[in-house]
C-alpha cells in the first residue's frame, strides 16, 4: 500500500486499488482501542434510473435504502447478529448518493471485516424476506414522516429541485416500496455493488497490508461495468418558491435554501465545498454580524444553523431553525448576502472565521466515521479531502464574495415552513 503523510493535520492514509478495481484506504490510528471499517457503494436514494445490460431501468423510490436493510440477510441467517455476537457495533446508512455499511469493534477485527465484506458482496433475498421488510421500513417511514425536521428539509429539497432525483426521499414512501421485489433488489445489487463502484476504508490501529490481503481474498474478482445513471436535467430555476405544512409542533419552524451552481468532480469539488462552508459561516455562522443581530432581536435562537451541501449535479446552501417569523429571517439572509457581496468583509473577521473553520475541520478528524465518510466522498468525486488546509489557503475574500453574489439571490431562494396546528 502506498502511504501519504499529511503533515498539517498529522494523519496518514495508505491507499491501493485492487486488481478488481476496489479502492482500499487505511488510516492508522495508534493508541485507539476501537477499529472501524466502512464499506460503501456509490449508490443512493437518487440513483433510481440507470442502465443495466443495455436496458434502462426505472426503479421505485426508496430502493437503495430497502436494499441496505435486506443486505444483512445471509443464507445462514443475519450478518447483524453475526457481528453483534463478536461485540461489534454494526450498522448502515443510505444517503442520496451513497450506501455505507460499517462496524466498530475492539476484538476479532479480521473476522468481523470478513463478515462485512462477505455479506455486502453476496446478496441473498427471498420473496418472503423481502415482503417481511415492508412492515419494518413502513414503520421507519411513518416515524420520519412525523418528524418536523425531516418534513421541512424534504419540502425544501422538493422546492429547490423540480427534476433532479435529489428531490426523492431516500426511504421512499409506503406506496413506492410496495413495488419492490426480490428481483429488483438483485438487479440493483448487480449494477452497483461491484468492486469498481465501491471503496473500503479502515480506521484504527491496524496493519494496512493485512487489510488489503483480506479484501483480495474475500471479494469478487470481476470489477463490474460502469453503470450510466440518469438524475434528470435540472433547470437553473427553483421548482417553487415556498411550501408550508401544519404539524403538531410547539413553535413555527423554517428552512430557507439557495440553489447553487454545482461543481465538477476533482479538486474543484472540494474547493467548492470549502468555499460554500466558508460563505455559510461568514454569512450566518454563530459569530457573524447577521447571527448576532437576529439573535438579539429574538428572531432566531440556538436552534438556528446553516450548511452547504453537494451531491451529484446539485449544490445548495440552507439555513433555518425555530422562529416566529421565518420569512423575515430568510429575507434578512438575502439582504446580508447582497451587502457582503458588495462591501466585502472586515479583514479581522474574515481571518477569524477562517481560523475557526480550520479548527472545526481538524476537530472532525477525531471521528472515525467522519474520516471514513470524507475519504469515501472524496473518492467518489475525485478529490483528496485531507488536502483541506491547502484548499483553505487558496481561497480569498474575493472568492467568497463572488460565491455570495452568484448564489445567494432572491431568484435562487426557496422557503419551507412548518406552522403549529391550532389547538
Amino acid at each position: 500500500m502506498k502511504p501519504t503523510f499529511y503533515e498539517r493535520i498529522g494523519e496518514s492514509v495508505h491507499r491501493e486499488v485492487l486488481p478488481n478495481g476496489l479502492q482500499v484506504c487505511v488510516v492508522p490510528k495508534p493508541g485507539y482501542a476501537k477499529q472501524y471499517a466502512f464499506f460503501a457503494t456509490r449508490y443512493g436514494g437518487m440513483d433510481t434510473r440507470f442502465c443495466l445490460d443495455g436496458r434502462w431501468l426505472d426503479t421505485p423510490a426508496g430502493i437503495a435504502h430497502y436494499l441496505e436493510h435486506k443486505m444483512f440477510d445471509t443464507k445462514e441467517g443475519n450478518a447483524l447478529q453475526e457481528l453483534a455476537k463478536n461485540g461489534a457495533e454494526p450498522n448502515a446508512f443510505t444517503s442520496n448518493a451513497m450506501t455505507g455499511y460499517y462496524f466498530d469493534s475492539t476484538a476479532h477485527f479480521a473476522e468481523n471485516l470478513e463478515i462485512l465484506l462477505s455479506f455486502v458482496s453476496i446478496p441473498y433475498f427471498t420473496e418472503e424476506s423481502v415482503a417481511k421488510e415492508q412492515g419494518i421500513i413502513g414503520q421507519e417511514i411513518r416515524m420520519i414522516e412525523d418528524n418536523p425536521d425531516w418534513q421541512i428539509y424534504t419540502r425544501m429539497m422538493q422546492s429547490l429541485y423540480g427534476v433532479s432525483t435529489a428531490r426523492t426521499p431516500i426511504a421512499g414512501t409506503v406506496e413506492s416500496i410496495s413495488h419492490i421485489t426480490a428481483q429488483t433488489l438483485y438487479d440493483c445489487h448487480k449494477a452497483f455493488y461491484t468492486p469498481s463502484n465501491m471503496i473500503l476504508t479502515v480506521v484504527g490501529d491496524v496493519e494496512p497490508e493485512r487489510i488489503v490481503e483480506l479484501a483480495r481474498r474475500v471479494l469478487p474478482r470481476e470489477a463490474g461495468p460502469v453503470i450510466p445513471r440518469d438524475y434528470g436535467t435540472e433547470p437553473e430555476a427553483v421548482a417553487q418558491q415556498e411550501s408550508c405544512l401544519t404539524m403538531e409542533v410547539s413553535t413555527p419552524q423554517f428552512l430557507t435554501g439557495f440553489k447553487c451552481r454545482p461543481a465538477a468532480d476533482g479538486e474543484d469539488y472540494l474547493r467548492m465545498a470549502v468555499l460554500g462552508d466558508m460563505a455559510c459561516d461568514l454569512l450566518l455562522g454563530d459569530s457573524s454580524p447577521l447571527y448576532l443581530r437576529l439573535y438579539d432581536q429574538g428572531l432566531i435562537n440556538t436552534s438556528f444553523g446553516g450548511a452547504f451541501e453537494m451531491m451529484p449535479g446539485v449544490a445548495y446552501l440552507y439555513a433555518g431553525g425555530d422562529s416566529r417569523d421565518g420569512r423575515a429571517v430568510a429575507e434578512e439572509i438575502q439582504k446580508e448576502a447582497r451587502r457582503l457581496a458588495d462591501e466585502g468583509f472586515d479583514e479581522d473577521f474574515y481571518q477569524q472565521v477562517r481560523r475557526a473553520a480550520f479548527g472545526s475541520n481538524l476537530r472532525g478528524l477525531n471521528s472515525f466515521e467522519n474520516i471514513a465518510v470524507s475519504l469515501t466522498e472524496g473518492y467518489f468525486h475525485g478529490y483528496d479531502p485531507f488536502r483541506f488546509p491547502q484548499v483553505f489557503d487558496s481561497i480569498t475574500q474575493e472568492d467568497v464574495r463572488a460565491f455570495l453574489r452568484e448564489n445567494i439571490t432572491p431568484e435562487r431562494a426557496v422557503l419551507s415552513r412548518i406552522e403549529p396546528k391550532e389547538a
Partner: protein
Amino acid sequence: MEVTRIQLADGVYLTYLPARKFKTSLLSAQFVTPLQEETASAWALLPAVLRRGTVSAPDMGQLSARLDRLYGARIDYTVRKKGENQCVGFVASLIDDSFAPGGEHLLEPVTELLGELICDPVTERGRFVPAYFDSEKTNLLDAIRSLINDKRDYADSRLLQEMCAGEPYGISRLGSEATAEKLQLHKLYALYGQLIASARLELFYSGSAELERVEQAMRSAFATLPRENVGEIILAKPHPAREEVHRVEESMDVTQGKLGMGFSCGSDDTAALLMGNTLFGGSSNSRLFLNVREKLSLCYYASSVYHRQKGIITMSSGIEFDNFQKAYDEILTQLGEVQAGALEDWELEGARSTLLNAYAAMGDSQGKLENFFLGQAATGQVETPAVLAQQVREVTPARIFEAMKTVSLDTVYFLRGKEAAQ
C-alpha cells in the same frame, strides 16, 4: 487509561485523563446540584445566561471572536440529568496545541475564558443583563415546549414523568414550563450566587497537556470562586414498585403510535441487570430486536435502557396504532423468557461482548469519557470503565436470571393518533 482525581478546593474536584491521540483537548466545568421541581428550570437557564457575556467579553460577538481566534475553540453550555442530580455548566473543546499553526498555547486562554463565564459574568446594576435574561428565558421556554416536536423523545420523557411522578427522577432536565414562566431576574442572580458557592464543582480534562499545567490553569481560572456550605452529592432513591400497573394513553395528530413501558427492578445487582437488559432490548441481538422487529415486523425500533443510577428499565417503540396489543404482549413474552432463563449461549456471550466493546471503546471518545466520569462523580460512584467491564465479565447466568426475576411492569404509556383515539 490512567485517571487522576484531585481536589482543588472545598467541593471542587479535577478529573484528569491524559491522552495524546486526539486532535483536540476537552475541558468541562459542571455544577452538581439536586434535581428539584422548584429549581430545575432556574438551573437550566443559568448557564445559558452566563454564556451571553463576561466582563471582559460582554456580548456574544466578542465571545465568538475570542473563540474563533483560538482556532474555533467551542464552549457550549450543558444541562444534564445524572441520577437525581442536575448538572449544569460548560464543555469546551479546543484543538491540541501541536496543531496550532503558530505554535500558540490554547489551553490557558480557553480555561481562563471558562473561568470567566462562571465567576465573572457581565452584570448591570448588580444583576444579570436584563436583555440576556429575557431572551434566554424565552429560549428556555421554547426548548421546553419543543420537546413535543420529536415524538419519540416526547413519549420517552412522558413515560418517565408518569412512572416517577413525585420523585426527582421524573423531573425533566429543563424543568417544567410552569416553573420556567415564573423565573425572575433578581432571583436568578441570587440563586447563581448560591450555586457557585455551595454546589459541588466537577472539573474535567482530557488531552495532551501535563497534569501540572492543567491544574495550574484551572486554579488560576477559578481563583475567585466562592466556597461556603458546600453540599454533599445526593444519591438517587430507589423507585417504589407499584402494586397495580399505571396506564396512560394520549392522542395527537401523528401517523405512528409510540409505546413506552417502564419496569421497576427489585435487585441491586447492577451488573446482572445491565446484562439482563442488553439481552432483553439493549442491542441488535436482543430479544426485542429479533422478535418484535425482525420476526413480527411490528416496528422499526423497539429497545430498552437500564437506568443504572435509578434502578429502572424503560422500553420504547414506534408501532401502528392497531398493533398495540400485539406488540405489548410480545414485549412481555420476551421479558418472561429472559426471566425464565430461556436463552442460548450465543445470546449471553453476544450481550457480554456488546457491553465489553462499549467500555473498551469509551477511551476513544473525549465526549463519552467526560459524560461517563461526570455521571460517576454526580452519583457518588468511583468505578472506572475497566472496573465495570470486569464486573460484566464476572456476571453468571444464574445472577442474571435472579436479578431479572425482580423486574416488573410498572407503567405503560401509549401515544396514538387523533382519528384512532377512542
